[in-house]
C-alpha cells in the first residue's frame, strides 16, 4: 500500500478553514475569457427597487476614499492565501445614502458573470471594490480594473470585473450558484456545493 506523505503545511494553522491548503501562487479561475475593460470605459452602479441608480465613472470612483486591506482569501477549489494585500473602496462608502428595503444583492460583472449576496454581509467593513493587489494595479486576469473583495466568503463571491450591484427581494442565485455551488459560501462552514 502506498502511504501519502504530504509535503506542505503539515501544521495546524488556525487561519485555515476546514479542507483548505495554503498556496503561494494566485490561481486564476473564471468561467470564460478574461474581458478587457479600459478604465475609461468602466462604470460602477448600484440600483435599488425603485429603479434609482447611483453611478461612478473611474475618476469619480478613484476620488472616493480607498483603504488598504490585508486579508486571507479562500477559494472553493481548496486553496487559501493568507495575508493578501489589497486597496479598494469600502461598500459602506458606496452604499452611503442608498435607500432600500431589499435584503439581497446581485453583483453583475462585465462578461455577464453574476453572484448573489446578502446585503448585511457586504456592509460594516466586510466588503470592498478593490482596484489594487499587492501594491499594483489589479491585473485583468484577477478582475481588473476592479473587483469585489469579500474575504469572509469563498472567493467566487468576490466577482471579478464587477460593474454593478442590483438590489433584489429574494436571494436569487447567481452564475456559479445555479451551476452547483452553495447559495451562501462560508468557508468556515465548508459551504462549497449545493
Amino acid at each position, binding site marked *: 500500500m*502506498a502511504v*501519502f506523505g504530504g509535503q506542505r503545511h*503539515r501544521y495546524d494553522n488556525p487561519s485555515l478553514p476546514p479542507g483548505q491548503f495554503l498556496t503561494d501562487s494566485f490561481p486564476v*479561475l473564471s*468561467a470564460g*475569457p478574461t474581458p478587457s475593460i479600459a478604465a475609461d470605459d468602466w462604470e460602477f452602479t448600484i440600483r435599488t427597487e425603485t429603479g434609482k441608480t447611483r453611478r461612478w465613472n473611474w475618476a469619480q470612483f478613484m476620488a472616493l476614499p480607498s483603504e488598504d486591506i490585508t486579508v486571507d482569501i479562500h477559494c472553493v477549489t*481548496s486553496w487559501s492565501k493568507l495575508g493578501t494585500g489589497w486597496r479598494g473602496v469600502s461598500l459602506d462608502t458606496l452604499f452611503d445614502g442608498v435607500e432600500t428595503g431589499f435584503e439581497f444583492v446581485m453583483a453583475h460583472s462585465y462578461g455577464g458573470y453574476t453572484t448573489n449576496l446578502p446585503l448585511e454581509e457586504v456592509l460594516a467593513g466586510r466588503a470592498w471594490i478593490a482596484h489594487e493587489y499587492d501594491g499594483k494595479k489589479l491585473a485583468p486576469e484577477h478582475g481588473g480594473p476592479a473587483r469585489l473583495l469579500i474575504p469572509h466568503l469563498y472567493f467566487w463571491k468576490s466577482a471579478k470585473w464587477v460593474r454593478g450591484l442590483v438590489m433584489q427581494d429574494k436571494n436569487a442565485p447567481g452564475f456559479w450558484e*445555479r*451551476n452547483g455551488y452553495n447559495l451562501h459560501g462560508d468557508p468556515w462552514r465548508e459551504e462549497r*456545493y449545493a
Partner: protein
Amino acid sequence: MTRTAMGWFTGSLVNAHPLTESARSITFAVPGWTGNAAGQHVDVRLTAPDGYQAVRSYSIASVGAGEEIELAIDRLPDGEVSPFLVDDLELGDRVELRGPLGGWFVWRPDQCKPVQLVAGGSGVVPLLAMMRAHTDSGSLAPMRLLYSIRTPDDAFFRDELLRHSSTSPTTWHYSRAVPPGWSRAAGRLTAEDLRVETLPPEQVPLIYICGPTGFVEAVSSGLVELGHSAENIRTERFGGN
C-alpha cells in the same frame, strides 16, 4: 454508507496505465457513484498517517452512469499530490473523492451546436470525456479538437483520439518538437494557427478550452479577437502559468 456527510466517496484503484512519461490514467471503483456528465471534475483527498490532508481537483475522463471513474494525471515535478497519484498509488489503494462537480464546463448530448474543443497538455482530459459522450450518443453535432502538446511523446490518449477521428477529428499542434516529416515548425499557437485550425466564427461554435492557465488565457483571448463571442467560450484553468 460510502458517502459521508461532506459528500466524500471512497474509491479504490482498480486500473492504472501510463499515458506518457509523466502521466498516468487511474481508474477507481467508487461504490455509490451515480455517474457524471462530460466535463465535470472531482476533488481527490489524500490523508497522511498523521491526519494531514491534501485536496486537488481532477477532471473526469470517463462519462455516463456506472461506479467506475477514470482520471488522467500529469506529474508536476515539485507537486505535492500529482507525483503520488502518478508514481506511488497502487492497485487496491483507496482515496476519497467528492463530486461530480461543476455544471458549466459541461457538454451534453442534447446540445446540437457545433463544438470546438481546444486542449493544452493534460487539459485534454475533460474534452476527451466530451468526445466519448459525443461518440456514445451518436450525436450529429459537429465536434473537433485542437490539441496542443510540447512534443509527440506528450500526447495523452493518442490512439483513442485517432479512433474518434471520423466523428470528432483532432488537429495536432506541437509547441517544442514536431514528429518527423511534419510540415510545420514547433511553436506556440499563434492567432493564425487558431484561425486556420479551429471552426470559424461564422459557424458560431460553442468553444471549450482547457489546460494550464496561461494557455487558456492566450487561446481564449485569441479566439475573441478572431470574432468569437465571449459568451460562446467556456474555460477550465488547471493552474500554473
